[in-house]
């Protein structure tokens, strides 16, 4: 090792020290701690604190509320990500086709994305108001109790989430479209490809990889979504919008089951990591190379 290399290595360690310290203290250490907590029966208000082994995890197997929350999480994630991808591609194509007014178009689109999720929830709570909400007023006599009807609450929450996060997918796609050289389209035109053929044979395949990435980011966010249902429905009515994250939060901070709640959060963590790993595997194999 030359002196230059040794100096560079010392520099690297100095540069990374704050990061390693921060992530070690506030991510890794709590991460290990939560595993330890999840192996205990710990209910502070009853002064219960003892080692429980895998009891908390074993209980999940027979906990119908857990399976209900898992189901809700799956429906919420699949529903919102699918809608976001479809709408996001459409928005990106529309803005990309614009000759003038792109800046204004992007501003209008990003407006929704920049809102805090809590604001998004409040906007939709007002839109869903049973009598004075814009949606029911528009629907007239077809109006419904969006957040109070167990059959409608989850779709209503999904819609509110899609509204706020679709622009993210759209922006990523739009940026990818900007990076496509004009010659690609000119060549397609020369070859006599129609608009539909250009879209399905050229544009959409070009978007494949970025869409997968956008879907990855959005899936991870949807799996850990909390604010939107916590504020909009609180998990109700009748638990129909209670996702795993909301269940974990309630177990931790409302019923104060520190051990069991930690086991639930570990499950959310494992789920997120498994999904991330699966997506990266698909991205690696390059089946959707672009």
């Amino acid at each position, binding site marked *: 090792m030359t002196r230059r290399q040794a100096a560079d290595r010392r520099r690297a360690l100095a540069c990374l020290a704050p*990061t390693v310290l*921060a992530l070690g203290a506030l991510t890794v250490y709590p991460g290990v701690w939560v595993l330890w907590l999840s192996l205990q029966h710990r209910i502070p208000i009853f002064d219960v604190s003892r080692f429980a082994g895998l009891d908390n995890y074993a209980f999940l197997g027979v906990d119908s509320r857990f399976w209900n929350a898992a189901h809700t999480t799956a429906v919420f994630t699949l529903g919102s990500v699918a809608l976001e991808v479809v709408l996001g591609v459409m928005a990106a194509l529309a803005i990309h086709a614009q000759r003038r007014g792109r800046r204004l178009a992007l501003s209008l689109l990003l407006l929704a994305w920049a809102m805090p*999720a809590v604001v998004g929830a409040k906007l939709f709570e*007002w839109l869903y108001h049973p009598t004075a909400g814009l949606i029911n007023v528009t629907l007239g006599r077809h109006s419904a109790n969006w957040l109070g009807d167990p059959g409608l609450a989850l779709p209503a929450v999904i819609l509110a989430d899609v509204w706020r996060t679709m622009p993210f997918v759209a922006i990523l796609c739009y940026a990818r479209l900007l990076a496509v050289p004009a010659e690609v389209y000119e060549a397609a035109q020369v070859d006599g490809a129609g608009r539909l053929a250009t879209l399905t044979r050229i544009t959409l395949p070009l978007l494949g990889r970025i869409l997968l990435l956008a879907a990855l980011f959005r899936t991870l966010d949807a799996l850990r979504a*909390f*604010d939107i249902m*916590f504020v909009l429905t609180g998990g109700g009515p009748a638990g129909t919008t209670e996702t795993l994250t909301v269940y974990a939060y309630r177990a931790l901070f409302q019923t104060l089951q520190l051990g069991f709640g930690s086991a639930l959060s570990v499950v959310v*963590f494992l789920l997120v990591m498994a999904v991330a790993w699966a997506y990266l595997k698909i991205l690696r194999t390059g089946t959707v190379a672009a």
Partner: protein
Amino acid sequence: MRRSIRTVGDVAVLVALAAYAIPFFWQLLTSFKPEAELLRIPPLLPSRLTLEHYRVVIEQSLMPRALGNSLGIATLTTLLALVAGVPGAYAVARLPLPGKRLLLLAIVASTAFPQIATVSPLYLLMRALDLRDTWAGLVLVHASFALPLTIWLLAGFIREIPMEAEEAAAVDGAGLLGLFRWVVIPLLAPGLASTALLTFLFSWNEFLFAYTFTVSEASRTIPVALALFPGVFEVPWGDIAAAAMLASLPPVVIVIALQRFLVKGLTAGAVKE
């Protein structure tokens, strides 16, 4: 003929996107509606506009305090994340490191980290260190949570800086601090702005930690104050609308004024690879 069709198309897209933003504009309108007309629609448009809801929110609610808290916490979070993130990103992008692949993997993995996974131990930690209800507690947690993404974005921007500039600085005998001060940071400015914006927005919008670690108004941030907005007998929709608009003000200003940096930050890394 062709030309006018395209203009119609352009306008149609703008109209559609304006319609998409209706939830926001409807809340904006609500925040200026007289109390008596809130629940009486149709008509959709109010007979007159009033500032009454804003007066109530500013004079009688905790929102002004929360606005101050959020501005302070988000700004300090951004500064801290950049102070730790710039050197970290530089090391990742430029310097030789044992186990670099593993480190990169850890950074990418931690951007996917769900907040709920560490909220319980962090709560116990905050309580043990007496950091609940303080700016410091939230800033530390927010900054460390934002750090992986900060490093990921900044490392991408640093790779775009021409190597020669740094080598010239090294030849001139600049130390590590000099290198950052005179070469890296000036050349990184646009990327720094994009990253700072996203970090600021993250901290401004973050709810789970902010909700869990605050008991009083001392460090209650905007999303928490809005979620807990009090209604005595009935829901004060007009006041909530005004509070929601105040909460959206900084993000809206950022989106409109600094759109270029925002889009650049959002798409960095993802598009190039």
